[in-house]
């Protein structure tokens, strides 16, 4: 049984059809690359899975059970974590505060529940270490490099027992060296049996870490095949429409 199964997912925004009858399955521990031109519907697809949007039509199954995610928290409680395109970080807070935002650790002092900074710093440090990132828990995000910001956003997905991590263009705005860091982090998620859906415009990244590549064009899925049996040329053709489908 696949971990995630989408059947005939469509999403309209008024007259715009962002997704048209998309089917997709993702297995546990699988890394799926999601590619396509700007406006192809990649982010919308991720947002449907993440609970940002209810699909207009279609069905979403997790471990075989139909789910209706109305809010991001619903998806998160089911083990689906997201690294958003704009990373969704608060610049004015520390790395640790961002990692735990919305899921703070607390400790009781009499009737009061106060934030347990010590535990949060320690756990965040552990997560950064696990990701082999040099991000420090107490640093303000404002002062961080693109790679460190990615690490914060990815560490956040490691708090709970995630089954699946969705990443929307994590390597779009960072340096080459930092891209390598992020790809390493994806390998580490996979090693732990976590499924990853990676949206990326960068062909080398997708071919370096993904098991499977899915191509979207104008809201439709036009290809879904093992990376081993495809090539960057074919995928480019699929994205642009030079190749209709594969």
């Amino acid at each position, binding site marked *: 049984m696949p971990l995630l199964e989408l059947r005939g997912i469509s999403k309209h925004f008024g007259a715009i059809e962002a997704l048209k009858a998309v089917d997709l399955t993702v297995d546990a521990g699988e890394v799926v690359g999601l590619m396509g031109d700007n406006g192809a519907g990649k982010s919308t697809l991720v947002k449907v899975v993440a609970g*940002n949007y209810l699909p207009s039509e279609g069905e979403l199954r997790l471990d075989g059970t139909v789910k209706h995610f109305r*809010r*991001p*928290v619903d998806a*998160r409680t089911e083990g689906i974590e*997201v690294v*958003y395109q*704009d*990373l*969704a*970080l*608060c*610049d*004015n*807070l520390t790395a640790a*505060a961002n990692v735990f*935002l*919305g*899921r*703070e650790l*607390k400790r009781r002092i009499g009737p009061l*529940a*106060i*934030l347990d900074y010590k535990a949060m710093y320690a756990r965040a*440090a552990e997560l*950064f*270490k696990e990701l*082999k*990132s*040099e991000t*420090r*828990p*107490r*640093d*303000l995000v*404002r*002062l961080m*490099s693109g790679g460190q910001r990615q690490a914060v956003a990815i560490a*956040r997905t490691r708090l709970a027992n995630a089954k699946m991590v969705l990443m929307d263009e994590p390597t779009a705005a960072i340096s080459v*060296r930092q891209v390598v860091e992020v790809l390493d982090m994806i390998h580490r998620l996979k090693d732990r049996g976590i499924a990853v859906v990676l949206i990326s415009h960068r062909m080398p990244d997708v071919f370096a870490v993904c098991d499977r590549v899915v191509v979207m064009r104008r809201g439709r899925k036009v290809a879904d095949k093992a990376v081993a049996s495809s090539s960057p040329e074919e995928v480019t053709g699929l994205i642009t429409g030079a190749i209709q489908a594969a």
Partner: protein
Amino acid sequence: MSSAVTRPPPGRVAIEDVTGLRERSLGQKLLSSQPFWVTIALIVMALAMSWYQPEAFASADNFFNITRNFAFIGIMAIGMTAVILTGGIDLSVGSIMGLAGVVCGLVLQAEGHWALAVLAGLLTGAAVGLVNGVLISYVGLPAFVVTLGTLSGARSLAIVLSENKMIYEFGPWGDAFNAIGGGSIVGVANPVWVLLALAVTFSVILNFTNWGNYLYAIGGNENAARLTGVPVRRIKLQAYVVSGLTAALSAVLIVGWQGSAINALGQGYELRVIASTVIGGADLMGGQGGAYGAVIGAALIEVIRNSLLMAGVDANWQGAFVGLFIVLAVLLQRIRTRRSA
């Protein structure tokens, strides 16, 4: 909160070496904090005045007056801080003060119990705050416009309720009510004690609770806060209720101190309150500020006011000096953030 941090060259340091370190020493933190510099300015100014006018300025009487005067503003500034942290603004605090004051006066005039008067005053503040909060966070209207509306609305309601008359015949519970805001304990005016208690409470809330943390997060990146599951709307609504409540609390105290309620109470206070928070380091764009800063900002404004008065400067110049300090404070803040950006 912000300063240039010297980082090790990336890629050459083991994480273990670094995570154990404190990133910034306490000293560095202090030097980069605006409340610290405002405190220094306050001390320098107080010392200068004590030297220049030892009898008038450095007297116990004057200390009593100065602290009491800024307590009213400081209390409101603490509530305002909650709103400003979220990136909002509450222009209605002065009018809330007027309305809550009139409500207290009316309850006492009708021979109501002092506790009932206090309760009615506070509820009035909370109610106006609730209106602000609902319109801003659930309907999605801009804070500036909404609170400008309640600034006008609450003031008008205060005038109508008071029938444009001063309320001073406080009935049997008047003395007890007046003792709250007008009394003092060990030589310190009651409003100052209230301010201190509130400042300590809010420092704890802002630094050590979820709720406080969420205010900062919303001000930093509202969308990020929402995506990570922070109940953004509810928290923003609550911030405006808190601001309404502190304005009403200040009204209860000031009406007790003056022994009368007029509908013009608190007129123009919104500017002094906002100025206090900004001078104390709050960022009007949200995400930065604190309770101590709000209090120390209020204190600085009052000492400037008091000093100018004693130096014989025409009272009409006060606004200019306060304005100057606001601009200086924002400038200082800008320089600090640029350095660390």
